[in-house]
């Protein structure tokens, strides 16, 4: 197809504003997915995506659109809205000329709407603003339209109104895409294809998801990865329909996939440029910043014998999840396992669930930690991503913790509430801005409590990590949204809190925290642990300590009674099944010293009320 008839665009929005549902309607209208195969969020095929109703991985699809003046090839990339996967948005943007900005007309601009728009602007993209969910009675399209005009400088007639649910306005949107998004530019030689994602297929090897900027590519040639220098024999090229569908060749301007013939995903980094060995390009396309793990936690097999299976599973999972990092670690309490790096807590949960489901493992995961920079008395600096690995206090001269730029959007009546929450989490206020909707210019001075504000803070990652988002949501009755990005490191008076179970420190329960919070957290933690660790055959003392100072204690009383009274009418099987269940439960616990500790206990930290 003529390059002028191609349009590449992605859909960006705050989480749940309807990106995937909008994609459904486009697939339907263009006849890409037949009515028979249609289902809600048809591109979210992963079990976890369907269960949670969110997009986890970005996806591309090629559509054939019959425009008034002939056919067009539309390549759509749907992006995930969750902040953990925000990096996918910039990858998608780099592969497109246009972006559809979806804003939920019942909610208006949210924190990630802002973040995504700024990203798109940096990429110099054509942005098409779309207000969604106008079928809902509570939608306020006029007000949100004004908000969008004010905040981003769109003109009124640029904004489209749709319902991704019932399809209203979607054909106008397709028309607008063809009109407004510029066609790709590209020369016919040499090949330059940007890898915006990759996956491992047991049959095809490493499959690169690419946007061709220049040249063309087909089966049989040899490719060269410009940054790693790896060569591969191209086994297949094709389009996403949305299933991988082979074609003869892909041409400049198109989005598609390349089965690279490479065995290892590391040879095919996302962000790298593919060219041909025979006729290489001289300059690579601008790539991406490598991903940075934000959160670290220990993953251990509940049954020590599964260590090797866990390693194999991690290797395989990493083939499809480049954001997952891991290295071996040993815990006195938990044995052999891996310290894993994640993009955030959702990512961590997803990795754990996939390992358990897809690889049949029973895992134990420790409380997550961030990575600290530790300056030593000999002038060296070490990075500590596990409290257990913190060097002795007397050798430390300074500790620095990772910092976030945190933006929160909420109705003005919650300013106080948000302020209070963030301050309690050691956040530092930076600035605040009203997002004006229906409020006229004159009214701005005495903005009504209905107006919404953007609040920006700097806050330690460790304080935002755990339950901050839940707290924010519940304290603002669900109205607040947030977004964050990494901002560097900041020096802080941090200490290590140890937990002693039956007088033995349990390394997997240690945590690093601000000095002023040790007392209160230590107390809360032993209280929580008391409810999470079942009674044992003997009394078990629980203590929280900073250094040699015990700051909180609790006792788990000894178990006194666990016996079945009656064997009714000779139903031995039932009795035995009960015992087998109890035995099974015990196996899932971790034995630390003499004490059996259930998996939940290692996540006690996450469940603390603060």
């Amino acid at each position, binding site marked *: 197809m003529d390059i002028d008839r191609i349009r590449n665009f992605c859909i960006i929005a705050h989480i749940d504003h309807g990106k995937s549902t909008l994609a459904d309607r486009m697939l339907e209208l263009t006849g890409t997915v037949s009515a028979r195969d249609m289902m809600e969020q048809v591109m979210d095929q992963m079990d976890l995506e369907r269960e949670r109703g969110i997009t986890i991985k970005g996806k591309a699809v090629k559509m054939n659109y019959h425009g008034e003046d002939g056919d067009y090839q539309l390549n759509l990339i749907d992006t995930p809205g969750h902040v953990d996967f925000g990096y996918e948005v910039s990858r998608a943007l780099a592969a497109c000329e246009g972006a559809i900005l979806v804003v939920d007309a019942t909610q208006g601009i949210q924190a990630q709407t802002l973040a995504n728009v700024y990203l798109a602007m940096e990429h110099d993209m054509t942005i098409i603003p779309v207000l969604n969910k106008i079928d809902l009675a509570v939608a306020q399209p006029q007000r949100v339209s004004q908000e969008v005009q004010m905040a981003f400088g769109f003109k009124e007639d640029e904004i489209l109104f749709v319902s991704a649910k019932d399809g209203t306005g979607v054909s106008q949107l397709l028309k607008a895409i063809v009109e407004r998004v510029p066609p790709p530019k590209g020369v016919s030689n040499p090949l330059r294809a940007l890898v915006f994602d990759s996956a491992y297929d047991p049959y095809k090897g490493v499959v690169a998801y690419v946007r061709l900027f220049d040249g063309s590519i087909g089966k049989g040639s040899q490719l060269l990865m410009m940054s790693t220098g790896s060569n591969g024999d191209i086994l297949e090229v094709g389009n996403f329909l949305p299933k991988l569908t082979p074609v003869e060749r892909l041409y400049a301007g198109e989005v598609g996939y390349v089965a690279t013939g490479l065995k290892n995903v590391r040879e095919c980094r996302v962000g790298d440029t593919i060219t041909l060995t025979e006729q290489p390009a001289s300059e690579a396309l601008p790539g991406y910043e490598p991903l940075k793990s934000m959160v670290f936690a220990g993953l251990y097999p509940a049954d020590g014998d599964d260590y090797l299976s866990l390693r194999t599973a991690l290797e395989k999972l990493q083939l499809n999840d480049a954001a997952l990092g891991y290295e071996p670690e040993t815990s006195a309490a938990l044995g052999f396992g891996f310290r894993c790096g994640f993009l955030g807590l959702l990512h961590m949960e997803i990795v754990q669930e996939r390992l358990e489901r897809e690889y049949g493992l029973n895992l134990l995961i420790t409380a997550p930690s961030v990575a600290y920079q530790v300056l030593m008395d000999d002038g060296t600096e070490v990075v500590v991503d596990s409290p257990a690995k913190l060097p002795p206090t007397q050798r430390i001269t300074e500790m620095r913790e990772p910092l976030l730029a945190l933006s929160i959007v909420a109705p003005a009546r919650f300013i106080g509430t948000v302020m209070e929450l963030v301050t309690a989490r050691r956040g530092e206020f930076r600035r605040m801005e009203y997002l004006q909707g229906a409020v006229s210019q004159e009214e701005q001075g005495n903005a009504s409590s209905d107006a919404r504000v953007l609040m920006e803070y700097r806050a330690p990652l460790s304080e935002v990590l755990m339950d901050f988002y839940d707290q924010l949501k519940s304290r603002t009755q669900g109205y607040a949204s947030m977004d964050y990005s990494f901002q560097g490191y900041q020096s802080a008076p941090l200490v290590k809190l140890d937990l002693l179970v039956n007088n033995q420190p349990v390394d997997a329960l240690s945590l690093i925290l601000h000095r002023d919070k040790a007392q209160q957290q230590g107390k809360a933690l032993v209280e929580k642990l008391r409810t999470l660790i079942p009674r044992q055959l003997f009394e078990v003392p629980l203590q929280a300590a900073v250094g040699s100072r015990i700051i909180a204690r609790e006792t788990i009383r000894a178990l006194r*009674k666990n*016996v079945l*009274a*009656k064997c009714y009418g*000779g139903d031995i099987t039932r009795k035995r099944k009960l*015992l087998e269940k109890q035995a099974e439960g015990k196996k899932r616990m971790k034995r630390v010293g003499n004490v059996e500790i259930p998996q939940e206990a290692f996540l006690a930290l996450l469940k603390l009320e603060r």
Partner: protein
Amino acid sequence: MDSENNKEGSALPAQIALYIHIPFCQTKCPYCDFNTYAGIEPLIPSYTKALTTEILHWGALLGRPRVSTIFFGGGTPSYVPGQSIAAFLDAARRAFQVTSDAEVTMEANPGDLFGEGVASLPGLGINRLSIGVQSLDDSLLKVLGRRHSSQEAVEAYGAVRRAGFANVSLDLMYGLPNQSMEQWRDSLERVLSLLPEHLSLYCLTLEEGTPMQQQVRLGETSEPDPDLAADMYLMAEDLLGQAGYGHYEISNWAKPGRESLHNLTYWHNQPYLGVGPGAHSYLGKWRFNNINSPREYIGRFGNFSKAEATVDALSSEVISQVPTVGDVETIEQPMEMAETMMLGLRLSEGMSLDGFASRFGRSLSSVYGEQIRELTSLKLLEQRDGVLYLTEHGHLLGNEVFLRFF
């Protein structure tokens, strides 16, 4: 060798215990999850016929083995007419070689034990009664949804004695919602003053799906405190010991020589046959149970009159062909060993090392050495003179011991 056995089946047992299930109750108690029903009394006649057929069927199939204990359980056996009981016993005597001194127990509710009914029971051959007294506190009887009062329970006991029963067991429950130590002591003392031959004390378990469990979950009934239940158990152990009862099984006490022979069959892991809907059996290498629904049970035996010819050996095929059998499970030797431990250690006579070795052809320590070492160091088990026992401390923590064998 084992798998050979499996193919050929097991030899027919020479002796079995017989359990007869009566799935009728006047009302259903809120804590009860037994296979029993209220409001299906019209089924009693056809049930009597079906159950009689099942007894005869099994007797023929197994070649009339010896039976020295029969146990009518339920449900409420005392709630069905004497003719039905008579018909079952008659069938049992025709189907099996019931020994002349067989222990024949019937479970009974106090409310059913007045009038002529009870007087006729000894004549039918019932020689042991197990009465569900549960408590002698009227407020707790109400919590349990029992239909009798404490007064009626005591009077029923008198009637039973007048009818000539010389072997009577009483059931009591503890660990009840809002039950105090004083209430428990009072019930125990009053029950002891009646001088029963046997006592079973059961801690209330909140079974999944029962109305009482619901009430507790919704906070309408307070959840019993397990530590208090432990104290109640210890108090009972004390009082019953002083009164001369032997604590022969975790939940059972008896005057010397008055232990329940039928229940000892279970704890010794010996063969038994259960008849009636939902009844469980253990014959040869197989544990199996009948289907639960009385209606379906009756349907399956209703037009089944031909008594089966005796089989040469038992096998899961033979068992599955009995029309009312539901699940059949093969118990291989490792499982049989674990079950033998779980059951045998409940008894105060303990698990004899010789007994184990002669049953399985392997020494106990070669099979469970590690577990026994651990449990001994935890002071839950002790070994004396070639016998392994639960310690006193271990009585209340029996599950912690048993689960280590699975």
